[in-house]
């Protein structure tokens, strides 16, 4: 085994993920058709040369809807990972740097959050603030916090056993400063891998939340709601459910492959 050339999962994962992220980015500026314009004449066309993925019951182009749905997916998953990292990582570092009471309080607090499934949390937030993409981001983000806190704490505790942390303390640095100057940079690989995994979980969670109507509201498009709407038409137009379903499947597969590939590469360099 040498180099990234042999790391098939890394390459395949990067390719698939790149494709979806690129499609979502392009959708920001351009889609083949404008899905806001309804055309009843063209309704329920199966996939053809004009509409690669066919059209829905309102005559909207499914490919364009998938691209815009991908934008929602990427946006929600990315922002929720950022929330998880920004809160979870400092908590994990603090926990590892201050064993004893602080560690205990932080980690038990995490356990409490961890006990709530993302869906339950989303329902809770929706009940208070009303449905919307922002609330999905917050719900999934809160779900991500304990995950990042635990991974960071475990990695940091391992780094604390190494003598360079003692050397830094002999150089007069306190534990928090060492956490950010020495330990965090050494955890980056670990966090990138975990970030990829949480990203893929975020995509699934967003699809689930929008399926039950707790995420982005119309006119914002999302894969989960497309699936929900396709449900009543499965006999008539099965492709309406297949394409968003496959989009979720393929994107998550790509992200998992990417995460696995990154993990393997990190394992080799360590």
């Amino acid at each position: 085994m040498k180099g990234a050339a042999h790391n098939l999962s890394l390459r395949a994962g990067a390719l698939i993920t790149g494709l979806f992220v690129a499609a979502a980015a392009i959708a920001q500026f351009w889609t083949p058709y404008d899905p806001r314009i309804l055309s009843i004449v063209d309704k329920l066309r199966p996939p053809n040369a004009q509409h690669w993925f066919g059209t829905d019951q309102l005559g909207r182009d499914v490919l364009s809807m998938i691209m815009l749905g991908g934008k929602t997916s990427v946006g929600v998953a990315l922002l929720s990972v950022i929330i998880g990292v920004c809160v979870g990582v400092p908590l994990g570092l603090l926990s590892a740097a201050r064993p004893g009471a602080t560690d205990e309080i932080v980690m038990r607090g995490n356990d409490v959050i961890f006990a709530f499934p993302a869906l339950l949390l989303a329902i809770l937030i929706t009940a208070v603030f009303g449905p919307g993409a922002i609330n999905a981001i917050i719900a999934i983000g809160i779900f991500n916090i304990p995950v990042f806190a635990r991974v960071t704490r475990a990695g940091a505790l391992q780094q604390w056993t190494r003598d360079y942390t003692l050397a830094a303390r002999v150089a007069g640095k306190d534990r928090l400063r060492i956490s950010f100057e020495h330990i965090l940079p050494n955890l980056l690989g670990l966090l990138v891998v975990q970030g990829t995994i949480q990203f893929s979980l975020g995509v699934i969670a967003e699809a689930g939340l929008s399926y039950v109507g707790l995420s982005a509201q119309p006119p914002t498009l999302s894969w989960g709601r497309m699936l929900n709407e396709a449900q009543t038409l499965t006999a008539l137009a099965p492709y309406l459910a297949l394409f968003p379903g496959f989009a979720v499947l393929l994107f998550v597969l790509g992200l998992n492959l990417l995460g696995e590939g990154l993990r393997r590469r990190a394992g080799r360099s360590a």
Partner: protein
Amino acid sequence: MSPAQVLEVMDLSVAIGAARIVKNVSLEVRAGEILGLVGASGSGKSMTALSIMRLLPSTASNTGITRLNGEILSLKSEAEMRTIRGRDIGMVFQEPMSALNPLMRIGDQVAETVRSHRQTNDREALGLAREALDLVGLQGEQGALDRLPYELSGGQRQRVAIAMAMVLSPQFLIADEPTTALDVITQAQVLLLLQGLVRTQNMGMILVTHDLAVIAQLADRVAVMHQGEIIEQASAADILRRPRNAYSAALLAASELQPKRTASLQGSTPAVLQVRGIVRDYPRRRTSLWHPRKPLRAVDGVSLSVHAGETVGLVGESGSGKSSLLRVILALERAQAGDVCLLGETLSSATGATLRRLRRSIQVVFQDPYGSFDPKWTVEQLIGEPFFLLNSPPSNVERRRKVAMVLEQVGLSAADAQRLPREFSGGERQRIAIARALITEPAVIAFDEAVSALDVLIREQVLKLLADLAERLKVAYLFVSHDLHVIRAIADRVYVMQQGRIVEEGAAAAVFDSPRHAYTQALVAASPRLPVNKQAPR
């Protein structure tokens, strides 16, 4: 007539990718004979041992012929090799804990080896296991069979590992650094055990080690390996007294550390570091709800002093409390009682600005040349880290100049400053660690087993460097080690530590040449030594 040849290796070469790790090695071992395979790390000695067992990593390829009692091992299938390993050839590794299954009773572990090779019932297998444990001095009758690995000491675990290797009475034993992870006294016992087994069972044995003193004690013949080749092969007595090859001679010279000639300066200079009555307890898990917690007393009322420009050695086995004491001295941990005075000021209770100021005067070099640097930082950043202790850290130009200066003091070049620690060898990393300790111009540098992880040739160079720096910079050392030779070679005065207490102290020569305390006597007696062929100048 000489005894029968047990193992023969002809023209063995091992390659990993394009790199040739072992080159044309030929060996033979007779019944009842111990062949010592000695060399620096990376010389290919472990690879040679592994290729006899056909246990090379899958990325390696090898050529050559290995015969065991006339049978050609190189032609055996993997299935045949599995029956040969353990039955005909036993193997003992360096780390006894990782060789044992932590969740399995040791009797069962030894018996498992029997069961995987022979069709026997459990009782028979356990019976053989008991015999094997008896053979290695772990009394099988007294419940030893039912104990778990964590209940045993390092030496006992290594005995279990030897019992596992011996249980099927193999004709050949390969021991790869079997005592490197053990204490001096335990090492002496395990070596004696191995030697006894080879003689009484009339086995052949290859002993792989980096330590010539171990070879001197045990081996009949020695093969010296260097860069994958056997450069000299002769009887142990010949090699240790009249090495013909230049590299073997260098290895031998580096192993025979010359005792330091001490200028009697103690008392003539003021004490820079004074440690008085340190007690360090660690909380232990409650054993019972009704009894109060009994703390583990790692350091029990230790006092010592280090005078300006003096090198003080602190000797003791692992678990004797040396490292705990050192952490208290470095103000990394607080002691339950006692105080540490540095340059007349109390370090152990200092806080804030005073602590920072005092810390400039005491720095440290750790054992592990790999773990003691943040792998993401450059050498310049690492060496400059103690500048954090200064109230006005030097500007970039000044900082660079000072880092370059200390790098040159430790024998590296200023150009190394921008490189990462992984680009350096173990010996060079220890030099970087010394440079980091020197940067604040401390009065005392503590060394925690600082040369224990180094090969003998490198160790000699680093010790020379340290002696030279002490001379030029007038810095005092507190040198902590389990290795008597190293302490003898560098220290003016020594303290011997056992179970948290200092049991003996005095001038290095006096303590080691005529130890008074029973523990020191045992330590000195157990420490493997090379035959003295030339009297050290006094």
